[in-house]
């Protein structure tokens, strides 16, 4: 935790998280913390267990051991004990997906309204007030639309509002997923490779958006990302995983200079072994040479 400002409260405390699938230990005794109003990045080579951590946090898997404590609004939520949908409903954790999961046949605006389901459901009093068109429900719906409009403006999607989500360009779909997650009023937002497939301009716009969310809404962001330009630029804190274990944890500078991290990414002896390994994988090249 060296170098992070101490004024931010701890939002998420992961302690001894372990996840086993049969004989395979996907995550092995990982502990780290994430703070509100900060961006915590989880990085690591393919198969290091990054998405598995997300799936444990958002209730898609229930961890084998470990404790996932979320602290906000003066209460503590133990995520490992909660049912999937309640984690969003009560503990206010929202997420996006590595392969975008939008409601394709619904319009962009509808996607954002669906994200406010629980607020609207309460206002519609189990649909009875809604069916009768009562004033309280109409007011709640208007507020929901305004909130959606706010996030459409923020993500630059206002012009697409009434189009089907499936017809959006790729970059816009990524931004819509973030907007949709933000409409659930999260305290912790988990982003699974938000920059995947974006061009450099879209990537830098994404950085600005994530910084805005962090600063203006005091949301804690947890980020899985392979694009190091994104990770190094916006993260306040980086956790590095390899083969399900945490191998490094700290500020971007600490992690970038950590020899263990360099070894995990580039192999034992980066000067000689790496090119030779590539050459072995390409027999045709070796014959020519």
């Amino acid at each position: 935790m060296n170098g992070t400002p101490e004024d931010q409260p701890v939002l998420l405390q992961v302690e001894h998280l372990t996840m086993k699938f049969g004989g395979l230990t996907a995550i092995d005794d990982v502990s780290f913390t994430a703070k509100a109003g900060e961006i915590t990045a989880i990085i690591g080579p393919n198969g290091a267990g990054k998405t598995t951590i997300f799936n444990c946090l958002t209730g898609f898997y229930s961890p084998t051991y470990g404790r996932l404590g979320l602290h906000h609004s003066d209460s503590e939520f133990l995520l490992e004990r909660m049912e999937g949908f309640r984690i969003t409903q009560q503990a206010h954790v929202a997420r996006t997906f590595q392969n975008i999961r939008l409601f394709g046949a619904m319009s962009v605006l509808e996607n954002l309204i669906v994200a406010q389901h629980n607020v609207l459901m309460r206002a519609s009093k189990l649909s009875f007030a809604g069916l009768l068109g009562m004033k309280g429900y109409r007011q709640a719906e208007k507020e929901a639309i305004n909130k959606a409009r706010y996030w459409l403006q923020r993500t630059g999607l206002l012009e697409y509002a009434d189009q089907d989500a499936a017809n959006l360009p790729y970059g816009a779909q990524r931004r819509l997923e973030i907007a949709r997650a933000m409409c659930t009023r999260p305290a912790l937002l988990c982003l699974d490779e938000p920059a995947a497939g974006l061009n450099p301009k879209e990537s830098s716009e994404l950085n600005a958006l994530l910084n805005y969310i962090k600063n203006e809404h005091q949301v804690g962001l947890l980020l899985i990302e392979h694009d190091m330009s994104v990770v190094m630029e916006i993260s306040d804190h980086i956790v590095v995983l390899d083969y399900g274990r945490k191998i490094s944890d700290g500020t971007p500078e600490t992690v970038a200079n950590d020899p263990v991290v360099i070894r995990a990414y580039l192999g034992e002896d980066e000067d000689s072994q790496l090119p030779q390994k590539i050459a072995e994988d390409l027999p045709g090249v070796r014959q020519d040479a």
Partner: protein
Amino acid sequence: MQNTPQRAVNWSRIVKESLVAGLIALVLFFELVGVRVVDNPGGLGLRSRWLWLLIAVVATAVGRLLLAWRREILNNRPVADLGLTASDSGKSDSRIQIFTRYVAPLLIAFALTLPMMPFANRYIVDIATLVLTYVMLGWGLNIVVGLAGLLDLGYVAFYAVGAYSYALLSTQLGWSFWVSLPLAGLLAASFGILLGFPVLRLRGDYLAIVTLGFGEIVRIILLNWYTFTNGPDGISGIPRPSFFGLPFKRHVPEGTDSFSSFFGLDYSSMHRIIFLYYLILLLALLTNFFTLRIRRLPIGRAWEALREDEIASRSLGINPTNTKLSGFAIGAMFAGFAGSFFATRQGFVSPESFTFIESAVILSIVVLGGMGSQIGVVLAAVLLIGGTEMFRSLADFRMLAFGALMVAIMVWKPRGLLSNREPTVRLADHPEEPSPDLVAEQKS
């Protein structure tokens, strides 16, 4: 293929295809059409109908020839043409929207005035009542299949629950139609929840199989629980509905009024037929308005979201179990209402009326109409139910016409007759209003 020029039509392939189709038709129709079992005085005999067989085979071969020829023409169209058709489909989408907007009120007006039309005889009104029953069932199933995306092959079970509820409540307890109707709906809805609890973890094909089984279980229970349901004999003598207490009868006991005597009309058996017609029209329109309304509520949007992506819905805090159960229950409730109507119209219910083929017909209406499209269901019901009733004179070939109609719709409109979806809310309809507390609230 060979070195044929791009635009040439490959005739040898087309002819081969049509010959193969003709051969298959020959094999199939030999039994179905070519020979027929007849009741001779000395026992059963066979009668051959070779001319009919020939007609069927030639019709199939020629039909295949035309289809294959059309496909070749379409395949060989230059790219520029294809671009044109793409913009055409966009245009047809907006045409459907205009069609829906203006045709729906016209259809309602037509349905309201139908019994007063000069051509409306008893036969027409009877068919219209039947069509409306299926329209209502289609609209009910549309909630489950079209909105919530849960493939239900046992929908007729809820129809049966509604029919037997009214039949038993009225014959055993003497309850009136208007008291039994909501109860039948509630009972059917609770059956929906009963079925829903164990099966909603299943998806797609698996859910379809289990619902299919449920439909059969209900029918078999009705068939075998003799002491309660009277088994295969069914329940007869179910009271006909009355007009706010005024029965549709020629002779009533002294001192009471019938519908005709109260209004000073001459007794006519048409009164009851027309009343039943308006009753089902009312019930069907109620289903329609309810569906249109609930689609715009959070629960309706949650159904559609679950249909689109269950994992994403869960990650947004939507409770998948409750949401699906409510869809199942509401769909079942409307089937229960329709079942009560069926029982009071027929005056007799038996398990025979609730076979799997009924579920299949209702599902076909929903799928052919275009999943989720309310007006598509009406068109499909008119085509499938009205059409097959009109073709009654074709006797044996009625079901063939039914099948041909389904194939034709699937070839011509694979996504259903009207398959476009209107968003439930548009930003364009909600102009921006400055709201100072919003930003403050966002920050909290």
